[in-house]
């Protein structure tokens, strides 16, 4: 659990202006599942899972994911964006306990 909230982002090594770039991202998170008691009843509690992922590029939101507990542990997301200018790509993961985990990647043209 020590790694919870660790964000990994992978972008292609060479990007040209105007390219549509695929980005892969991963966050270490338990994504707690629904638990049931001996009678099979759902235990009501605040399950800790990521419910929102926000991707911004050059300060503009390009993609968001609303997620539920049906998303796997240590969730992986990929998406594309159109590389128009060099700048920062930022991904934020928000979980149900108020946790906010961020990862950034600098987009440079080569």
């Amino acid at each position, binding site marked *: 659990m020590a790694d919870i909230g660790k964000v990994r982002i992978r972008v292609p090594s060479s990007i040209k202006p105007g390219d*549509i*770039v*695929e980005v*892969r991202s991963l966050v270490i998170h338990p994504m707690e*599942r*629904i*638990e*049931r008691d001996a009678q099979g009843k*759902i235990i009501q509690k*605040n*399950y800790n*899972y990521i*419910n*929102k992922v926000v991707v911004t*590029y050059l300060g*503009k*939101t*390009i*993609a*968001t*994911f*609303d*997620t*539920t*507990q*049906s*998303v*796997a*542990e*240590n*969730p*992986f*997301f*990929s*998406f*594309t*964006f*159109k590389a*128009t200018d060099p700048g920062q790509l930022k991904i934020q993961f*928000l*979980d*149900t*306990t*108020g946790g906010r985990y961020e990862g950034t990647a600098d987009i440079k043209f080569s």
Partner: protein
Amino acid sequence: MSRRLSRLRDPGTTEEHTDGHGLTRRAVLVALGAMGVAVAGGLAATPGTAHGQAFGQNESVEEAMKRLFGGKTIKDGSAAIKLDVPLIAENGAVVPISVTVESPMTPTSWVKHIYVVADKNRIPVVTRATLAPEAGRAYMGASIRLGETGDVRVIAEQSDGTLLQVKREVKVTVGGCGG
């Protein structure tokens, strides 16, 4: 000071007597009810719970589809949507899925949302991707859980409101939703 307070309090009591109990009691109940709603709203606004309850619920897939799309017609989207998901998932705890929707992705016509719904999951709604035209391509990938063998459906909502759907059955050897 105390006299003023008592004077302040007095009109209230006299009012209650003159207006009759029913009205005031109702007023009090209404006020209490409103407070209750406010408290519930406040609770629901805490991160996660509200969102989780509103978006992912323990429900049947029919209910989920009704909740998400109402009575809107959903067209077959097999020509436009490319759904990449394994036919057999050995481990339901992690199933990779990727979706590409054919779309020009211009500010006048783009794919606004991509929904992923797993029919047999206790929480059928898996994720909803909201895209901007700047994404360049209507694409998303994610790793999802599948509780048991069943259909996985992907619904793409275009900027003009058109809904397109594709379905694919995935066989799950070991379920991944637990509970």
